[in-house]
């Protein structure tokens, strides 16, 4: 019996995976991608009811934190006459979005985001920081490692501290296409 246990122990040690310490790298800007999606604001007099296009640049900062540079452009009813630019920090709630080693991050996740937007929605009508947003991404399918991610039905609250307005917004989906940190670029 003792012999069998020792044999099993030796086999386990032999086949056990060593920690890939040589592959551990920083997650800062490990993944970079583009985002395209939809955005709609409700109960906000500064936005016409119509359709807004959301364009963005995603950059990974840590295993759970990412930075999004977002642009929201009005398409309908007035074409490209109103736009907002902002930065959002997103934190993943259901595990790591990426790992330091060669393992892929979680394929299904939720995120919460906090950001600041600049636009002309103020009394002076000048382009300046006006709005802070809190956004929830209930379902993010995909990961940087897979090259694609869909953030489904993100929604949140926006507070315009210049006009003291609170509004809500939502998107049908935001699609992320990664150009760095994917299985094509980093994992083979």
């Amino acid at each position, binding site marked *: 019996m003792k012999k069998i246990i020792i044999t099993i122990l030796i086999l386990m040690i032999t086949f056990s995976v060593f920690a890939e310490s040589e592959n551990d790298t920083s997650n800062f800007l490990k993944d970079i991608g583009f985002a395209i999606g*939809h955005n*709609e604001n*409700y*109960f*906000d007099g500064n936005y016409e*009811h*119509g*359709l807004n*296009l959301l364009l963005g640049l995603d950059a990974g900062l840590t295993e759970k934190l990412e930075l999004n540079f977002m642009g929201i452009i009005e*398409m*309908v*009813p007035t074409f490209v006459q109103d736009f907002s630019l902002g930065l959002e920090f997103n934190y993943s709630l259901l595990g790591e979005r990426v790992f330091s080693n060669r393992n892929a991050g979680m394929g299904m996740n939720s995120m919460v985001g906090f950001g600041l937007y600049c636009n002309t929605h103020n009394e002076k009508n000048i382009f300046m920081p006006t709005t802070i947003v809190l956004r929830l991404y209930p379902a993010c399918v995909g990961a940087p490692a897979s090259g*694609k991610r869909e953030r489904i039905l993100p929604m949140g609250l926006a507070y315009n501290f210049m006009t003291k307005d609170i509004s809500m917004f939502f998107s*049908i*989906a935001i*699609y992320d*296409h990664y150009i760095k940190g994917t299985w094509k670029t980093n994992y083979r």
Partner: protein
Amino acid sequence: MKKYFLISLILVATFSISAIDFPYDSGYGFEFSGKSDSSQLVGMSIYHKIGDLSFLSPGVEINADLSVSSKGIKFGGIRLSGMLDLFYLENKVFSFISTNPTLWSPSVKVGVFWDYQFYSTVTLEVAVFRFLEKDFIYEWFSPFVNFDDNGVNSWGLTFCRFTYMCL
């Protein structure tokens, strides 16, 4: 003009993939769009493919929309349109957006749109970014214009339309 049209037609016929054999001819879909005189529209559509040609293949589509805004939800309109799938090309250019292989098939739709007051207009939609899978049709950023006797009545953009082909 006639010459260019004929050359275009020959080119389309040459490069279009022949013998498209999709298992289903009909399906239903969901769409999100915005119209210049309205709010955001959320709708459903029913699509039926009539022909099985390798290019300029005809079909019909019915769309019913709800208008969603801060003021509430109301009837947005109904549209009945005939359409032509211009061609079917293996999607190399936009293949990065989908996991499965797709065909690129732009489509032109012409029909009648009745708004919430049942005022009728002639509608034209061009679905440039239209991609076919075995069971799905994806359409992105399709502009449309509604005309009446005075010219352009309204215009808009269909952000996305996903049609599930099942019948």
